[in-house]
Structures are given as C-alpha cells and as structure tokens.
C-alpha cells in the first residue's frame, strides 16, 4: 500500500524517559513533517524536512530532535519526556520542494501518553 506509516500507534511511558517515533513514506515525496495535535484537536507543525534537510523548525523544546536518514524516513526522538508532551503526533509528507503549499498526506498518528 502506498502510504505514510508511523510506529508505534500507541506509546505509554513515564516522565523522564526517552522515546522515538518512526515514520516512513513510500509516496516518493521529498518533504516530510511532524505535527502535534493536542487534546483540543489543535494541530501544530513542529518540523519539516526537504530531502533530508531541516527547513521548518517551530518553537519546539530542544528535547525534540528529528532525524531524517533518507528522504523516505523522518523519525522523532524525544528526550526527558514531560506530562505536557502527551498528545497525538502525526507524520506527513508532500511534494513541492519544501514549500508548504502542496497537499499533505498524513499517517494515522502516534498517541503518546506520559504518566
């Protein structure tokens, strides 16, 4: 299936732990993103990578570090998890050379719960 797939779907962990979320797209897109959706459904962009280069880096704590080993993968590593990090994290991809004007294709999300 052509898609944006992210793992795991659910992640429950304790404060202070370090965790990673993986994302892969087989759509041939050159731009990938991480979005955070809070409990009120507000969806906010965190990072964007175009051909493995960081092009958007919103005001996100340094504890969040994206890693793009190739243009089909964008992983999100989170250090020293805090309660406020609990949210649903969405990976997305698009064509367009890094300009956020092309339609986005989203994964199904990773629900992170920090206890």
């Amino acid at each position, binding site marked *: 299936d052509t898609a944006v797939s992210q793992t795991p779907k659910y992640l429950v962990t304790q404060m202070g732990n370090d965790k990673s979320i993986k994302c892969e797209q087989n759509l041939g897109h050159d731009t990938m993103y991480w979005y955070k959706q809070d409990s009120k459904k507000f969806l906010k*962009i965190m990072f964007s990578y175009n051909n493995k280069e960081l092009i958007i880096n919103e005001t996100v704590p340094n504890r969040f570090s994206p890693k793009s080993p190739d243009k089909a993968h964008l992983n999100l590593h989170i250090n020293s998890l805090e309660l406020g990090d609990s949210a649903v994290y969405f990976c997305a991809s698009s064509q367009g050379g890094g300009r956020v004007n092309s339609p986005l294709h989203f994964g199904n999300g990773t629900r992170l719960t920090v206890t």
Partner: protein
Amino acid sequence: SQQGEEDPQALSIQEGENATMNCSYKTSINNLQWYRQNSGRGLVHLILIRSNEREKHSGRLRVTLDTSKKSSSLLITASRAADTASYFCAAGSKLTFGKGITLSVRP
C-alpha cells in the same frame, strides 16, 4: 500565529441537509486547503483552492475563497452519516491548521 480558524466549532445536521463550514486566516496566502479527520485517524486532504480562484468543486464539496475578507467556506451538499468527522482548513507558508469543526450527521 494561527492561520486557519474554523467556525462553527461543532455542527449537527440531519442526513440529506447541507453543511457549511467557515474558515478565516490572517496573512496573505498562495492557497488554502481543507482536510477531513475521522476519529482516531490522520487527516485526509479534500480540496485545495488557489488564491486566484474564487470557487472550486469536487463531488459534493464546494469551496469558496474570498481573499479580500481572508475567509473560505466549505459546503458539503446532501450530507451522509459517513460525512461525520472533523474538518480543518489550513493556510500560510507553514500550513497552519485550526482546531477544526466537528460535524455530526444524524441518520
């Protein structure tokens, strides 16, 4: 700053009725996009309207764009129970989304 802000926050209609959802944005845009999110799933792109377009259709969807008012509307005609979902607009260079509109279509 938040670009896409949807209105109303929630909408409940009967199957067969039309649903109209509105979106406002703050700065100049190249295009505006509407997305749909079913519960527990990712967002799905519905339609993109460019800044030089005033209206666009896709099946039962009709989107309008008024750049002078910095607003857009999404009309779903002849709604179905399966249209029940959250709908988001997104605009701006960083494709900022709003909180979405929760649409419930009663069978």
